[in-house]
C-alpha cells in the first residue's frame, strides 16, 4: 500500500514536472497531497512546487533535500491540520510577510506529533509555528528570516500550547525570537540561535531542559519568563549586546538550575528580574563561566535566593551590578564551603586548600556609583575612576557596603571546557608585523639622532 503511494506520488510529480517544464510553473503539490492516501509517504522528485499546501491527514512528504516549496510571497509554505504529519528534506521559501496572519514556512494547528526535519527555510516570516500540537519534533532544520526591520520579522520557531515538543539541532538565524508559550516538558538541545531579537524565549513553559545550545549575537541571548523548573545546562551564550543585551534574562523564574554554561562577551551576562519569585524556592547557578561581559550579573534590587557555587567570574567590566543600587542581600555566594572564582580576588590561600583564607568582597566605590548613576559608566576605567576607588580603600569611611561577600572564594580557575561558537579567531601575524614595524621605526629615529648633523655637531 505504502509503496504504491510512493510510486504514485513520484509519477504525479513527474507528469506535473513534464507539463510544468514548458511553462516553468511550480508543480501543484496540493494535488499530489490530495491524491495521496492517508498515512502514505510522498517522495518528491527535485523541482519547484507551489506552496500554500494544506495537509489534513496523516502523511509524510520527503523532498530528498532537492525539492523546493515556494509560497510565492503569500501565505504559508505548509499548513498542517492533522496529526502525524512529517515533512522532511524540503526547502521552503518565500512565505507572505503578514504578521497578523502569522505566515509561516510550516504552520501546524492541532498537528500532534508533527515532525519537521532536515528542512531549509529561506525568506520566511515565521519558520516553524506549532500550535496545540503536542509532541512535535523540530529537528535539524536551517531557518533563515526575511530581511525586514526587526519589529516586522517573525519568529524562527514558535511553539504554542505544544507540550513535549523536541527542538533539536536547528540553526535559526536573523529572526525575531524563538519563543515557547504555554508548553511544558520541552527539550531544546544543540540548537544555534543567532542574530535575532531574543535568541530563545520561554513564556509560562515549565519543566524544560535547555542544553548545549549556542545563543550568539542576538539582542538578548535567552529570556526565561514566568516558567518553573527549567534546566539550563551546557549552553554557550556570547556576544549578545543589543540595547538590553542580556546573555540570559530571568524574570519570575522559579526552580531554575543553570549549570556549566558560558556567558561571554555580553552586555550583561545574566540579568535577574525578581527570580526566584516564590519565597520557598532557590535558583542554583553552578560551574558557569561568566567572562568579558560589561556586567557579569545584574540584579534588580531586592532579588534574593539565588545560590552560586563553582562559577568563574573573569574580566567582567563590573562583576556584579545592582540596578539603581537598591537593597541587595539574601543571595548565597558559597554553598557547603565552596564559593566562586573571582579574578579580582585580592586574598591568599596560605593553607593551600584551594579556598581563599579571607572572604571575597565586592565593594568598589566606583561600581556602586555606576549602579546608582548609570551615566558614570562613561568614566569607567579612567585614571580618575581608579583614583576614586583608591580613595575609598584608603579612607574606609568612603567605602560602600559590599555588594557580594563570598566566604569561600576559589583561588584557582575551575576547569572550563571550550564550547562551539561562531566567533572568529584573529590571526596574530598582522599584529606581529605592526609591532615589528613600530620597533623598527623607534630604532630608526634613535639612529637618526646619532648620525652627524650638517653644520651642528
Amino acid at each position, binding site marked *: 500500500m505504502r509503496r504504491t503511494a510512493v510510486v504514485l506520488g513520484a509519477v504525479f510529480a513527474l507528469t506535473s514536472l513534464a507539463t510544468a517544464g514548458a511553462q516553468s510553473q511550480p508543480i501543484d503539490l496540493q494535488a499530489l497531497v490530495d491524491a495521496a492516501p492517508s498515512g502514505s509517504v510522498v517522495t518528491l522528485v527535485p523541482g519547484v512546487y507551489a506552496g500554500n499546501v494544506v495537509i489534513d491527514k496523516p502523511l509524510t512528504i520527503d523532498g530528498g533535500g532537492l525539492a523546493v516549496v515556494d509560497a510565492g510571497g503569500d501565505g504559508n509554505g505548509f499548513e498542517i491540520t492533522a496529526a502525524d504529519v512529517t515533512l522532511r528534506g524540503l526547502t521552503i521559501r518565500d512565505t507572505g510577510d503578514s504578521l497578523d496572519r502569522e505566515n509561516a514556512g510550516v504552520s501546524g494547528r492541532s498537528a500532534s506529533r508533527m515532525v519537521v526535519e532536515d528542512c531549509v527555510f529561506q525568506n520566511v516570516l515565521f519558520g516553524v509555528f506549532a500550535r496545540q500540537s503536542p509532541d512535535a519534533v523540530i529537528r535539524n532544520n536551517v531557518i533563515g528570516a526575511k530581511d525586514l526591520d526587526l519589529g516586522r520579522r517573525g519568529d524562527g520557531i514558535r511553539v504554542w500550547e505544544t507540550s513535549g515538543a523536541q527542538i533539536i539541532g536547528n540553526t535559526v538565524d536573523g529572526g525575531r525570537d524563538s519563543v515557547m508559550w504555554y508548553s511544558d516538558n520541552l527539550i531544546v538541545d544543540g540548537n544555534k540561535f543567532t542574530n535575532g531579537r531574543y535568541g530563545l524565549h520561554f513564556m509560562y513553559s515549565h519543566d524544560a531542559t535547555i542544553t548545549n545550545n549556542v545563543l550568539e549575537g542576538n539582542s538578548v541571548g535567552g529570556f526565561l519568563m514566568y516558567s518553573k523548573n527549567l534546566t539550563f545546562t551546557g549552553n554557550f551564550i556570547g556576544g549578545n549586546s543589543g540595547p538590553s543585551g542580556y546573555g540570559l534574562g530571568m524574570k519570575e523564574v522559579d526552580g531554575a538550575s543553570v549549570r556549566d554554561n558560558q556567558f561571554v562577551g555580553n552586555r550583561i551576562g545574566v540579568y535577574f528580574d525578581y527570580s526566584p519569585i516564590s519565597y520557598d524556592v532557590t535558583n542554583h547557578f553552578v560551574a558557569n563561566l561568566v567572562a568579558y561581559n560589561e556586567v557579569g550579573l545584574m540584579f534588580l534590587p531586592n532579588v534574593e535566593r539565588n545560590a552560586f557555587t563553582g562559577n568563574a567570574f573573569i574580566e567582567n567590566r563590573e562583576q556584579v551590578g545592582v540596578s539603581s543600587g537598591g537593597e541587595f542581600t539574601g543571595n548565597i555566594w558559597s554553598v557547603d564551603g565552596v564559593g566562586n572564582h573571582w579574578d579580582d580576588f585580592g586574598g591568599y590561600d596560605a593553607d593551600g586548600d584551594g579556598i581563599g583564607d579571607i572572604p571575597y568582597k565586592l565593594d568598589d566605590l566606583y561600581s556602586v556609583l555606576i549602579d546608582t548613576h548609570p551615566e558614570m559608566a562613561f568614566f569607567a576605567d579612567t585614571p580618575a575612576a581608579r583614583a576614586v576607588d583608591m580613595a575609598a580603600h584608603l579612607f574606609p569611611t568612603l567605602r560602600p557596603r559590599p555588594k557580594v561577600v563570598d566566604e569561600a572564594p576559589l583561588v584557582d580557575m575551575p576547569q572550563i571546557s*571550550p564550547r562551539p561558537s561562531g566567533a572568529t579567531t584573529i590571526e596574530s601575524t598582522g599584529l606581529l608585523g605592526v609591532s615589528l614595524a613600530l620597533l623598527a621605526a623607534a630604532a630608526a629615529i634613535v639612529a637618526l639622532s646619532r648620525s652627524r648633523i650638517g653644520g651642528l655637531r
Partner: protein
Amino acid sequence: MTVAVARPQIEAGTVVTIARKELRDSVRNKWFWLYAIAFAGLAGVLTTLALPSARVAGYGAFGRSASSLVALVQLIVPLMGLTLGAQALAGQQERGTIRFLMSHPISRSEAFIGMYLGLAAALSAAIAAGFGSAGVITVMRGGAADAGSFARIAILSWILAAAMLGVGMLVSAFTSRSGVASGSALFVWLGLVFLGDLGVMGTALATDLPVGALFFSAVANPVEAFRLATLTSFEGSLDVLGPAGTYAVDSFGSALDALLISVLILWVIVPVTIAWYRFTRGKDL
C-alpha cells in the same frame, strides 16, 4: 654674501637641522629614556598580565590588555609630552642655548618649528617602542589582536603626544624659568588626567547634568577624546559607556570618530600656534 635675517622666512633645511639637534638632545636626556623605558616596560608587563586567561572562544582576547594599555597611555603619554614641551623653550632659554642658536642666521619660527618637530620625533620613538614591545609580547605569549585596531591605538597615542607636546611648549612660552614651566606642566597634567574628569563627575552627580553636556564637557579634554577614540576602535562602539555613550552614538553615529579625532587635532594645532605666536613675538631671549 649677505646674510639677511629675513624673519618670517622658513627654510626647510634649517628646520630639519634644528629638529635633528633637538632630537639628539632629547635622546641624550635621561628623562626621555626614563619615560621611554617606563612606558615600554609597563606596556609589556600590563599586556603580559592581561593575557593569560584572556581567550574564551575568541572573546575578550585583546579588550582587557587594550583597556590597560589605553589607561597607561592616558597617564604616561601626557606626562611625557607636557614635561618635554615645558622644558623645551624655558629650559633652553635659561641655559642660554636659544640665545646661542639665534646668533646663527635662523629665524625664530625656524627655531620653534625645528624644536617642535625634533621633540615630536623623540616622543614618536618612545611610543613606537612601547607599543612595539607590547605587541611582540602579546604575540609571543600566544595572544592575538586585530592589527588594525592596535595600529590605530598607536597612532592615536602619537597624536595625543603631539598635542600634549604643544601644550607643554605653550606653558613654556609663557614662563622664563624651567622650574616654573615644569611645575605648571605637572599641574596641567593633573588637571587633564584627573581633575578634569573628577570635576565633570562631581558636577554630574551634584546637578544631574544632562548626558549631552556631560559628553561634551568630557570630550573637550584631549585625554578623554583620545580614550573614546580608542574605545570606538576595539569595542566597536561607545554603547558600553552607559547613557552618555549611547547619546554620543545616537547623536553622531558614524561621524563620532571624526568628531573625536578633530578634537585631538585641534588640541595639536591651537596650543602650538599660540606658543609659536608668543615665542616669535617675544622680546628678549
